[in-house]
């Protein structure tokens, strides 16, 4: 009997499931069931402490008439479309500079990585808030250069700038991934190009960029997903204002759920978010077929 049990436990099928068990349990417990519940709630008027009643598509139709929601989509897209490309271009540019034959590459790489390391922390968000405040560092610098101090957090047109800059400032992790990719490109490619009379710019566009395209795709998707979910910065620095100009999607979901206790409505918003992000990711993948080089 014991022998039988021992043999059973050592079958690949059993061993595999034993080791994968945490993931399988977790998938049901903290992903699938919550998602199903969330889908169900999105068709209800659920508020904590109140009885639940089914209201069909009401939340979803309400969404499209909700100006604040439409605005949240708009500002989130503006944020994603400005911060992600800038961050990637900058990360790539600096990674490329640092792979040139210079001394102290490791030191500089660490230096540039510091903002990414601490950028998600509350401390940095609080500091950033002060830097762009009325009498903050940036305004002092502006007036020293002969300009007018600006009301960064009071002006709807300006408020996106500090937030986008904060994201671009954290280009370090994208840079490290790019740098690792650049290092893998065989030197002989560049030598051959040089022999054919290509200059540095040409070899960058015709060798470095195509060889890096799978990594660009990876960075693009990861950064896009995380930019869509931006919450902490907006919550701490602008709290969505002024006049909802930085009321990002994630912040709107949070406020609907935990401030206004509209759990059903917030669930509907988060499902629309999931669908939008799914479509965007899919579009990036589809488009990648035309610009990512296959190894």
């Amino acid at each position, binding site marked *: 009997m014991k022998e039988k049990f021992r043999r059973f436990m050592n079958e690949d099928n059993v061993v*595999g499931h034993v080791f*994968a068990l945490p*993931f399988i349990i977790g998938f049901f417990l903290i992903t699938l069931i919550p998602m199903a519940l969330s889908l169900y709630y999105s068709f209800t008027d659920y508020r904590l402490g109140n009885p639940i009643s089914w209201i069909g598509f009401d939340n979803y139709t309400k969404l499209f008439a909700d100006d604040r929601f439409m605005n949240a989509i708009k500002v989130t897209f503006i944020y994603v479309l400005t911060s992600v490309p800038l961050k990637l271009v900058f990360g790539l540019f600096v990674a490329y500079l640092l792979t040139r034959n210079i001394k102290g590459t490791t030191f500089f790489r660490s230096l540039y*990585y510091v903002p990414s390391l601490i950028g998600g922390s509350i401390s940095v968000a*609080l500091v950033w808030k002060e830097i762009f405040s009325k009498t903050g560092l940036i305004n002092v610098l502006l007036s020293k250069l002969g300009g007018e101090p600006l009301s960064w957090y009071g002006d709807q047109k300006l408020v996106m700038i500090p937030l986008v800059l904060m994201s671009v*400032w954290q280009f370090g992790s994208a840079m*490290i*991934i790019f740098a690792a990719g650049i290092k893998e490109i065989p030197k002989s490619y560049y030598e051959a190009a040089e022999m054919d009379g290509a200059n540095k710019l040409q070899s960058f566009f015709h060798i470095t960029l195509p060889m890096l395209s799978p990594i660009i795709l990876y960075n693009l998707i990861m950064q896009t997903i995380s930019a869509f979910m931006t919450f902490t910065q907006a919550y701490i620095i602008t709290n969505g204002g002024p006049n909802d100009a930085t009321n990002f999607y994630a912040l709107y979901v949070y406020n609907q759920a935990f401030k206004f206790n509209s759990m059903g409505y917030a669930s509907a918003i988060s499902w629309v978010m999931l669908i939008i992000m799914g479509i965007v990711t899919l579009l990036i993948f589809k488009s990648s077929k035309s610009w990512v080089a296959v190894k």
Partner: protein
Amino acid sequence: MTNKKIKKIALYLFILILGLIMIYPVLWMISGSFKSDNEILSGSLNLIPKEFKDGNYSAGWAGFAGISFFTFFKNSFIVSSISTIATVLSSTCIAYALSRIEFKGRKFWFAVMLVTMMIPAQVILIPQFLIYNKLNLVGTYIPLVLPHFFGQAFFIYQIMQFMVSIPKELDESAIIDGCSKYSVFTKIIFPLLKPSIITTIIIQFYWKWDDFMGPLIYLNNPKTYTVSIALKLFADAGSSTSYGSMFAMSTISLIPVFLIFLFFNKYLVQGISTSGLKD
């Protein structure tokens, strides 16, 4: 001077100035922790305070509502350490199953793992909160640490990438020697995963240390607050807290992250780049 030399000097200058700009906000925060409120509010660009104010740290450390920052640091350490240990144990096991054992459904669960990496946290946040609320667990650390016992896709994937480099012959010869697949994991694979485990520890620890949304939603008693949430409340207290002590506590809160970075820089860079490479 040749053209080439000028170009090189320009390159160095650019890299250096960029580095300074990058690090300036951090240095400004540290120097702010030694400045008086007047100096901070007048928007000084100086990194060296006009006059050293040394009371900011002790004033900040006293915290608020009679709870000192010692408590908040202790709480953050508890939450981050438990989560990190849980992530390492669960993610290595799962990675072992998915990359080394031929079991039914392996491909399926691998695909599921990749998909979960892309699900935005916000979508499951609300129902998760409602479940924990029903179980009366809101206000405890359980919602903050429990998910880590089920592995985390980002780390599972990274560990799997690393596991590819461990030769399969090692497993096979151990099995011929009479090892079970369980002891292959504990005696051979797990010890060999060391670099990958260190990367996981570092990244998970500082993610958890920085985490704001979790504590914001699940913690409601100031005694249980982690550093991130305490800092936010500390800053909100406005009139009663000084900017100097806010900067002082901000600086201290970054120390654990910086220490990890200094000591494990190599592993960190390796981990970040391998998780992005190899497809």
